């Protein structure tokens, strides 16, 4: 057993970090806050770099890698706070033409949520709706089972302009949201809905992990630099202990996320999402605290991490659902 990154996986992670640092650095991030339209050129560049086609077979023009590699790449996206329907485009790269290359942008939303929220509505060419089949895991590949609400479980695609939606004021300035009021279920997509949900939860957790790790660095960096009472605030035990707890959260989440990427087990994914949500939200809060008054300003990036972490925590398996699932898993 060697539960460590391979040399190739480390190279992939480092390469992704470099690419994102070069193309989506701090200036670009702050510009995106002011102007949330997605950078289509960057999207195509990500497509060309294999960001979306990562898991497609090489015969289909993909990179032929697996879920662990996708998790490493999404962890980097989370670190960089890269905006956009990244999870949707990664998961639908093989199912909707043009997505793999970054030419087309698709959104993905869960039918069971209330409200049904759509990320980046104005930027998406299509929206894909995922519905639970009859009972947990009932929808096999292709879906097509009768759903709990008399609807058909599975996935449906709709052109952007066919979706009826209402404005929704998103908490995250980097993720515009719309409330989906009605969506035509005319064009079913042959997708394994339970698997899609599981992978969406895991890739979301991976971004939470990246954000959690990044806010540790931000807090530590600030605590080393910022002086109060004539010394760096990082020399105060109260500040040290905040930073230490942040690292503990991130490392626990890392173990959970990495392992779920290997096992793909439902319970492992639920644990990964739960712990990564906690790490991202908790760390962003503590990072804000370490930054003091500066952390409360719009100019600091900390609030962007916190707001995105809150948003991701509400997507693809919220704490209540994960905990119930894990509790049920103790009984079998």
């Amino acid at each position, binding site marked *: 057993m060697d*539960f460590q990154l391979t040399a190739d996986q480390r190279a992939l992670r480092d390469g992704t970090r470099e690419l994102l640092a070069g193309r989506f650095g701090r200036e670009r991030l702050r510009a995106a806050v002011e102007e949330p339209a997605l950078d289509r050129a960057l999207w195509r560049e990500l497509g060309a770099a294999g960001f979306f086609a990562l898991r497609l077979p090489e015969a289909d023009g993909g990179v032929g890698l697996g879920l662990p590699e996708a998790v490493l790449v999404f962890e980097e996206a989370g670190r960089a706070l890269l905006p956009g329907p990244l999870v949707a485009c990664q998961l639908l790269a093989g199912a909707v033409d043009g997505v793999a290359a970054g030419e087309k942008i698709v959104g993905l939303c869960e039918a069971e949520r209330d409200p049904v929220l759509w990320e980046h509505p104005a930027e998406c060419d299509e929206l894909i709706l995922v519905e639970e089949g009859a009972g947990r895991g009932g929808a096999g590949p292709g879906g097509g089972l009768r759903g709990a609400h008399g609807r058909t479980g599975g996935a449906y695609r709709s052109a952007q302009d066919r979706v009826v939606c209402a404005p929704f004021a998103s908490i995250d300035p980097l993720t515009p949201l719309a409330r989906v009021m009605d969506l035509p279920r005319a064009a079913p997509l042959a997708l394994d809905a339970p698997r899609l949900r599981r992978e969406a939860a895991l890739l979301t957790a991976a971004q939470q992990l990246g954000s959690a790790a990044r806010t540790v*660095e931000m807090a530590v960096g600030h605590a*080393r630099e910022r002086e109060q009472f004539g010394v760096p605030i990082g020399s105060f035990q109260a500040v040290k202990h905040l930073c230490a707890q942040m690292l503990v959260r991130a490392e626990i989440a890392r173990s959970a996320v990495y392992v779920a990427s*290997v096992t793909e087990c439902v319970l492992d994914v639920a644990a990964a999402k739960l712990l990564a949500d906690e790490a991202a939200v908790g760390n962003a809060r503590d990072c804000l605290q370490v930054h003091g008054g500066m952390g409360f300003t719009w100019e600091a990036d900390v609030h962007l991490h916190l707001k995105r972490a809150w948003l991701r925590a509400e997507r693809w398996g919220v704490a209540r659902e*994960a905990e119930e699932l*894990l509790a049920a898993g*103790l009984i079998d």
Partner: protein
Amino acid sequence: MDLTYTPEEEDFRARLRAWLGEVLPRLPAKPAATDWPGRRAYDTAWQRMLYDAGYAGLHWPRDAGGQGATPTQHLIFLEETERAGAPYVGANFVGLLHAGPTLAVEGSAAQRVRWLPPILRGDEIWCQGFSEPDAGSDLAALRTRAVRDGDSYVVSGSKIWTSHAEVADWCELLVRTDPAAPRHRGISWLAMPMDAPGVTVRPLRTLAGSAEFAEMFLDEVRVPVGNRVGAENDGWRVTMVTLSFERGTAFVGEVVACRRVLGALARAARANGRWDDAVLRRRLGRLHAELAALWRLIQWNVSEATGAPPGAGRRGNGGGVPGAGGSVFKLRYSHVRQELYDTAAEVLGAGALDADHEWIADRLSSLSYTIAAGTSQIQRNIVAERILGLPKGR
């Protein structure tokens, strides 16, 4: 990220499982928690069985009497013995997990020959003489003096929280050999015979009711200079070696045990109706995630120890941060363990007032986890200063 075990590892697991199935039914009855001589006899008998079967000091180097097994095999050993309900390391704890590994790394050839085989056979029990009444977590403030007199050190002072002192044959003792040196520099690591004249042991009763540890008074105890491990005044470095073992795999079996208890809690809650409480159910679910992640963190740390050269920073959460190891694990685990047994009390309701209930005895003992082996506050300082590189200070 490969979680599959090699055929050799699977084979090792199968053989171990078969052996455990054969020998565990033959074990004598477990003694009462307060019966220390009985506990010593029970724990050392188990150690002897391990020794005879070739499982003692499994991952120790062969020239230290061990089997030279890989860290992963050691992990499997800890997992399987716990899963099978084999005895806890018990009175052998300090010898096997602290003194032995330290002697294996830092001891002279003669010292290894003298002390390691009896530890592995279960013939000799060790205790830990590190903490003092005025030097608990601030270990470098220790004041027990050792003055050179010919071939001996003459040791005077006192120690506290000395686990297993009542039944120990040897003590890994930290003493101050140079009072003039800076506080970390004047310390030496001695192996002190517990039957030496001048050693007085007074058991301390814990809040759990048992006498796990003791106060120890040292009145001009003569310890041969040959019992010093490492150079004179180099004891702090030797001690850090000891502590790295303490925070390494010492908790592996416990995490397996906690996962077993958690399953039992869920079933008990189902049986007594507490399961209908969504708040309790969600707590159980969260603990499931926590303990699973802690188990994976152990696997990660063991893989890291197996593969990468030290300091290669394979964990790679950026910025040259080295692998986050034992302190990170210990911080989270000690708190999760307390939450687990608090949840057990919730499942039991008024039954939680029964001090004889196994879960309640463990609830009481879990209170020591955020204190022993470096308090959570000390661990946070270690993480902040040594891993995150924050400046020293107050």
